[in-house]
């Protein structure tokens, strides 16, 4: 007996919607199983996670706070995916964006000028974009595998930022802790009411719309889609593939850089060794789930923001928030497997002699 796939005449429409939901639910159930192995009550843990993420208005606002960098990174990774490019380096690009924006904020500690935050915004985008250019240029000009280069540069970027935090930018009044000084308030993104939700949320939504129109209504977007779907056709049509690869990596890195700018300017208000808890990696799943429909990216980012916040609340039960990454990996596994079922029927077949 062996499992064989049989192509459906038409992809199952029902399954197109059922599969992602089922993947998330199943991943949570398997995650509960792992929690049980870890020695805790899985139902209590799942409940804690759900309440911790969506149960109270405070929880909801915290989930929204995490949603902001996830939208930026999700768009970043998704844009690259659209062109069949793998940008696994959003994490490092985020750190570089945070580094540049934070550097500006520290240079103008008393900056009350209206231009400081816009400048930090631009700097964050540029720094992330330039960091993204490295794998982009290597891919476009020398055909070097961008998965490996973009990923390895994450380690380099984090070490780079840490050097400054532990070294020249360390707060002299910080009792030796690895933090920079707190930014002047002129470098803080305004927040909504008493919450920690900052203006970055509005930026993220605007950027989502911009990317939507970039892909749908511009020549650039058209080229990205053709290169992603049919590189052969793109070549025959005389498109400049190398240029598109470079531009996509620059924009993609820039978007991830904005996530970093938002985190340090809107939430942390200084530089510290940990600026992102894997937003750049979570973004890979978000991008894959949403197939770069910007509206979907926003919604999926909100769900994953909830997963992150819910995961932290498990610390109260003495559990490691690493469960979040188990669940993320499982969602991606199940989604991949499930997508096959949309197009194929699966059944057992007796092996022929």
């Amino acid at each position, binding site marked *: 007996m062996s499992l064989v796939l049989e192509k459906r005449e038409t992809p199952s429409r029902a399954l197109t919607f059922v599969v992602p939901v089922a993947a998330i639910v199943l991943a949570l159930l398997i995650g509960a199983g792992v929690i049980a192995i*870890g020695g805790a009550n899985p139902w209590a843990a799942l409940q804690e996670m759900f309440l911790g993420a969506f149960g109270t208005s405070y929880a909801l606002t915290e989930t929204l706070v995490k949603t902001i960098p996830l939208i930026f990174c999700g768009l970043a990774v998704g844009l690259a995916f659209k062109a069949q490019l793998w940008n*696994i380096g959003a994490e490092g690009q985020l750190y570089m964006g945070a580094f540049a924006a934070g550097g500006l904020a520290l240079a103008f500690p008393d900056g009350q000028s209206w231009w400081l935050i816009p400048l930090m915004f631009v700097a964050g985008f540029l720094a992330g974009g330039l960091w993204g250019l490295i794998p982009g240029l290597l891919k476009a000009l020398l055909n070097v*595998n961008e998965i490996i280069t973009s990923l*390895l540069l994450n380690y380099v970027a984090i070490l780079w930022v840490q050097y400054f935090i532990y070294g020249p930018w360390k707060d002299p009044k910080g009792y030796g802790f690895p933090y920079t000084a707190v930014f002047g308030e002129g470098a803080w993104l305004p927040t909504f009411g008493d919450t920690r939700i900052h203006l970055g949320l509005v930026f993220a939504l605007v950027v989502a719309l911009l990317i939507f129109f970039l892909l749908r209504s511009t020549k650039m977007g058209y080229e990205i889609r053709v290169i992603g779907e049919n590189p052969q056709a793109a070549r025959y049509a005389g498109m400049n593939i190398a240029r598109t690869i470079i531009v996509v990596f620059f924009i993609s890195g820039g978007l991830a850089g904005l996530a970093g700018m938002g985190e340090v300017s809107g939430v942390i208000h200084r530089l510290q060794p940990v600026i992102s808890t894997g937003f750049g990696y979570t973004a890979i799943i978000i991008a894959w789930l949403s197939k770069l429909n910007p509206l979907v990216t926003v919604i999926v980012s909100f769900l994953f923001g909830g997963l992150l916040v819910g995961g932290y609340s498990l610390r109260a039960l003495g559990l490691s928030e690493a469960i979040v990454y188990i669940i*993320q*990996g499982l969602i*991606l*596994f199940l989604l991949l497997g499930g997508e096959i079922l949309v197009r194929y029927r699966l059944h057992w077949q007796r092996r022929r002699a």
Partner: protein
Amino acid sequence: MDLQMVLATLSATIKAGTPLLYVTLGEILAERSGILNLGLEGMMLIGAMVGYLICFLTGNPWIGVLVATLAGGAVALIHAFLVITLRAQQVVSGLALTMFGAGLSGFLGKVVIGVPIANYLKPVTVPLLGSIPYLGEIFFQQDALVYISYLLIPLAVFWIYRTRPGLHLRAVGENPATADAMGINVYGVRYLYTFLGGCLAGLGGAYLSLAYTPVWLENMTAGRGWIAIALVIFAAWDPFKALLGSYLFGLVDAVQFRLQAVGVAVPSFFLNMTPYLATILVLIFATRETLRRRLGAPAALGLPYVREEK
């Protein structure tokens, strides 16, 4: 730098290169069958955690190594099922495996963070060979897993190029349709080598936690799984070149560590970057070479095999 320090650095080179060697060899086997598994980092982490945990529970590092090896193979089977049977996207499945492995090892390994173990794999001097001047100290005063890796590489070379199963392996990776027509079980071969690749990744991970630095820390592999992916390209899918590449990186690691120990003026953060930057440089060089000399990847690498119904 005196002679003793050079010898110590070279000895550390072998030690630092060995986990990379196991993992790279495993990926070569999987990729030779046509399966790209980017989940090395995750499988290594699971191997490192499981090996440490089992050694802690049983007091026997060898049981730890064995279970870690099987654990790496077991999680590789998830990837195998998705990409071989279900024909899923190999890159994304590998990334999922990386996240899953990092999460699972972090979650289940929490109980042994910072808990010391009494028994781990300690160096054993080989009689006679160990007393060769200089070379003995570098190559033959290591732990047993290093010696096993010395044997494994020629064995793998022989297996791939000189045996019938090795021929089948290459056929499946180059042209699965022809291999199928020859009567080779394409799916079976791919499952087998993806599993073996996972086993070796688990073993490489266990080497880190049971021999290299006997301790378990979350994400202690620090990108070695990704460096190994680059090494496969550097090695042009050849086990012997994988040995050279692994020791080259072992050297980078050992030298930067030595420099930190003697306290050079370069901040440790920059020294810690060197393995990653070196990998990128090597990758650029290797990509140019493979393009120039047409040492391509196995032709069917990354592509699902669909049997044509007759």
